[in-house]
């Protein structure tokens, strides 16, 4: 008995091989993507850990304060393995002759690797007195720098040539982020240079600071020790204490790792949901078309559970074949993704292991998807009443007027055919529910990701067009004096220039401390907008504006006091929080320049110049002309930062694009399933209407209307869910690095609804073609109308 059913199973599969192959391919993709992304996540995590271990990366980096006291104190703390110091300075550098940019010079000892935060020499050799600098690999690649080349560093007495010893990679700067505020660097404008300590010692003291690097013994309570050292550092005047996890590079890569982790769940979930949906559609139609056969089997003595198992096997078969191909493919993909990702980011160490546990989880996922999707159709087959099934009749369901007709009595005067449409919506509650849920899911999926794209585009535009209004920023070789600013402003193509103070700052409240940059602008500045509670407001004459995330992180509110430490200009003061500014990227503090000057004891704290271009000025020409000025030490193109930010969103857009396509596919599959069932259930009615003289066109129109009505019912909750999910999705990514407020363009709602309706209309095309082809005579004969 069972073997005959297996033969039937095999033949049914062969008969519908193209549909089953499509389902299997979807499962293969789902499992392979799961394996690929999850293995990549594990491999990348292992790669980073391996690199951190190999290069003895600092577990804690402390900046500022009483360095000697901190070193001595930290050495005595239980769990600390090693402590060392180094000098770090952000100074203008010049590469390839005339390209001026900001370089972060990181001091390394003469004669050998530091004990902590070592550098992996990728080419050339370790720096010495004759060739005192080692270029970080991203900068080296961008400017095609190699051992033997020369860069210029702005020293106390002007530009000094420094020979390059080689190219290196650092675990601390796996991703060369300038700070947590500027996590996306422009390689044109910022780079890392490892420099012999003697070179750093010769630099002007302004801008240079000493860091204490600490490593922990293995097995210690990292979080506990982090907190202990942070408190200790703070008590000794440190401006910043950064655990390994919070290093800008590490924080940026962690965002990517979380992305991989989420993708490893989201992608397979979506693909398996799509595969499950397709299997469900396929089997529902199969059971529907085999009602007569099922009735005969059961009338002939086949047990319900045998029939149930028979149809369940279709789903399991697709799952097993899908998993058999998908799991090994996933292992392979994991290795490829790991290599490609580490290659793209130039991460030197790469673990590319295929994990057996990942493959096994993938197989379980596939089996669950296959079994779950086949469950409902199999149960439906097992529950068929043999006599009814053998007649091929499908129960039509009960009638009744709809609530909307009761609420809107004039609808009672609609023509009968439109009443049929209205009532057809609620005719089969299960089908209505499944369609509405499907539409809700699809709309949610589309709006969630489309909304995220909207938000990011809008917020990038807000950051780079509305908040940051400057076209460029230049660092000067000296102070940003009024004369220096006037010289910049007088340059051809410059419309407006302002002196701005951009200084490292430590902000402390009673509950926390945050290290960022303090920006001092003219009170009447036109180069920066301060968005407080949605309004563009001027800088306060006293007090400071803080980034919104500090409201929570420092536990302060407007009117509270915070302690401000600006070591570069010897400011230690208490300021009132005048407001919180909404800025998508980074978390800064703002103060008026006159106020900052007063706090600095009258000394000019401005160290940079922001400027805008005159209409028609070409950014590249402006870069060249301004860089050529002797007073200019480094140049930052603000629009290049925007382009860079958009470029880094590429992967995210690709991810979201796939989600959008899947959303459409899901809508298509679900609606197709519903309409198929709808028409199959009504073949006799449709034939009767056709026999009665109702045209095919009218019937198609009636079915289409019912379908669109069902779709629209699902659209409204779908839009609500989509909004909530997009809000949640963005909030997950929000931190002091990025603050993604949800902004969905009105057109996105409209396009989402249109996309779903188009999916609904397209999905019913095959069914409507079936209506067009419906042979009334055949139905009359087969069903004995």
């Amino acid at each position: 008995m069972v073997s005959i059913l297996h033969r039937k199973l095999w033949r049914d599969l062969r008969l519908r091989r193209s549909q089953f192959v499509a389902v299997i391919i979807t499962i293969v993709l789902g499992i392979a993507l799961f394996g690929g992304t999850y293995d990549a996540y594990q491999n990348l995590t292992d790669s980073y850990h391996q690199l951190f271990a190999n290069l003895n990366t600092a577990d804690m980096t402390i900046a500022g304060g009483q360095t000697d006291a901190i070193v001595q104190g930290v050495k005595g703390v239980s769990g600390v393995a090693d402590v060392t110091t180094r000098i770090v300075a952000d100074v203008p550098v010049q590469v390839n002759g005339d390209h001026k940019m900001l370089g972060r010079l990181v001091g390394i000892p003469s004669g050998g690797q530091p004990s902590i935060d070592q550098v992996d020499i990728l080419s050339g050799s370790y720096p010495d007195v004759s060739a005192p600098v080692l270029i970080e690999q991203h900068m080296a690649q961008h400017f095609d720098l190699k051992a033997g080349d020369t860069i210029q560093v702005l020293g106390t007495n002007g530009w000094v040539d420094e020979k390059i010893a080689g190219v290196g990679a650092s675990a601390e700067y796996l991703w060369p982020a300038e700070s947590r505020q500027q996590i996306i660097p422009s390689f044109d404008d910022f780079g890392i240079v490892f420099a012999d300590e003697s070179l750093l010692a010769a630099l002007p003291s302004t801008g240079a600071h000493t860091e204490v690097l600490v490593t922990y013994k293995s097995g210690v309570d990292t979080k506990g020790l982090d907190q202990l050292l942070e408190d200790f550092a703070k008590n000794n005047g440190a401006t910043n204490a950064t655990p390994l996890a919070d290093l800008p590079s590490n924080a940026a890569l962690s965002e990517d790792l979380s992305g991989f982790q989420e993708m490893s769940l989201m992608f397979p979930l979506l693909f398996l949901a799509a595969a499950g949906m397709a299997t469900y559609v396929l089997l529902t139609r199969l059971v529907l078309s085999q009602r007569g056969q099922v009735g005969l089997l059961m009338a002939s003595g086949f047990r319900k559970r045998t029939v149930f198992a028979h149809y369940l096997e279709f789903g399991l078969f697709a799952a097993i074949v899908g998993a058999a191909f998908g799991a090994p493919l996933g292992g392979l993909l994991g290795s490829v993704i790991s290599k490609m990702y580490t290659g793209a980011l130039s991460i030197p160490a790469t673990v590319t292991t295929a994990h057996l546990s990942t493959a096994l989880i993938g197989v379980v996922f596939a089996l669950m998807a296959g079994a779950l999707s086949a469950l409902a159709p199999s149960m439906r087959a097992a529950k068929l009443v043999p006599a009814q099934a053998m007649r091929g009749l499908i129960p039509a369901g009960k009638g009744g007027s709809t609530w909307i007709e009761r609420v809107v009595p004039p609808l009672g005067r609609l023509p009968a055919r439109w009443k049929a449409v209205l009532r057809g919506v609620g005719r089969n509650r299960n089908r209505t529910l499944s369609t509405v849920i499907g539409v809700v899911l699809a709309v949610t999926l589309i709006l969630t990701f489309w909304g995220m794209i909207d938000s990011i585009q809008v917020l990038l535009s807000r950051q780079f067009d509305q908040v940051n209004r400057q076209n460029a920023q230049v660092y000067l070789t000296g102070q940003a004096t009024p004369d220096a600013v006037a010289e910049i402003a007088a340059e051809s193509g410059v419309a407006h220039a302002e002196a701005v103070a951009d200084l490292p700052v430590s902000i402390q409240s009673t509950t926390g401390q945050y290290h960022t940059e303090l920006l001092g602008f003219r009170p009447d500045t036109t180069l920066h907008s301060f968005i407080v509670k949605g309004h563009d407001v001027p800088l306060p004459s006293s007090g400071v504006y803080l980034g919104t995330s500090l409201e929570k992180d420092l536990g302060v509110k407007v009117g509270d006091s915070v302690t401000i430490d600006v070591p570069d200009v010897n400011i230690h003061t208490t300021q009132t929080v005048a407001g919180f500014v909404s800025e998508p990227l980074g978390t800064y503090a703002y103060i008026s320049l006159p106020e900052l000057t007063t706090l600095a004891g009258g000394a000019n704290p401005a160290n940079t110049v922001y400027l805008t271009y005159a209409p028609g000025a070409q950014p590249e020409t402006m870069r060249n002309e301004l860089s050529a000025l002797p007073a200019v030490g480094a140049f930052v193109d603000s629009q290049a930062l925007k382009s860079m930010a958009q470029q880094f969103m590429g992967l995210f857009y690709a991810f979201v694009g796939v989600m959008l396509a899947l959303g459409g596919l899901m809508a298509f599959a679900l609606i197709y399933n519903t309409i198929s069932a709808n028409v199959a259930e009504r073949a006799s009615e449709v034939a009767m209407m056709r026999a009665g003289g109702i045209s095919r066109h009218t019937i198609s129109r009636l079915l289409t209307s019912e379908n669109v009505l069902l779709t629209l019912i699902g659209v409204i909750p779908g839009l609500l869910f989509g909004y909530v999910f997009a809000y949640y999705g963005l909030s997950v990514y929000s931190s002091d690095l990025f603050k993604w407020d949800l902004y969905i363009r009105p057109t996105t709602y409209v396009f989402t609804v249109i996309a779903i309706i188009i999916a609904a209309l397209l999905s019913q095309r095959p069914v409507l073609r079936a209506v067009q082809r419906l042979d009334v005579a055949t139905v009359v004969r087969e069903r004995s109308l």
Partner: protein
Amino acid sequence: MNVIDLHSATRTFGEGPTAVRALRGVDLQLDQGEFIVVLGPSGSGKTTLLNLIGGIEEATSGRIVVDGIDLTNMDEDERTEFRRSHVGFVFQFFNLIPTLTALENVQLMAELVGKNHDDSLSALDAVGLADRADHFPGMLSGGEQQRVAIARALVKKPPLLLVDEPTGSLDLDTGRQVLTQLRAVADRDRRTVLLVTHNAAIGGMGDRVVRLHSGEIASIVSNERPLGAEEVEW
């Protein structure tokens, strides 16, 4: 005047050696107001004959004229138009739309030909179901549903009513009620009724009884005194 005029009507399914000749050169003429019963075993061509006359199927050869309209060479759209105004169908399974009331099921067809609410109510009244107008099919008995189906077919006031096994799924008493209504359509409304069945007992009700065998008319017998529905036993 002949409402139906068939000349050598033939219907063949398939081609070559596997071809099935469902109807082989049938000649048949029916008058207005006649009540004709077509009898025959399964596969004799009863339903094919009904489908050809109703314009559901196209004859392979021969000529079919209904109510003065030649169905030969009509395309599907033209036959749809023809069915809309000239034919009413009643099938074994009533195929009422479950989400519409009895009255609305009738209106569905009435609206096709511009008939109004009162026409639909009259049609229901004619089959004795005016008081059940607001009931949904699920609330009606099998006989009542079939009578709604008759009203639905009649509301267009077609000259020809084609009925396929109307009592096939009804018990004797209910079947008699339905047959009474059908007979009245011919006697009272002067419409031609062509009833197809394999139930020989119903043959006694026909003005004429056409017997089909293997796609050919085996006999046409006139009943001098057609039986009333209440006299029919099966």
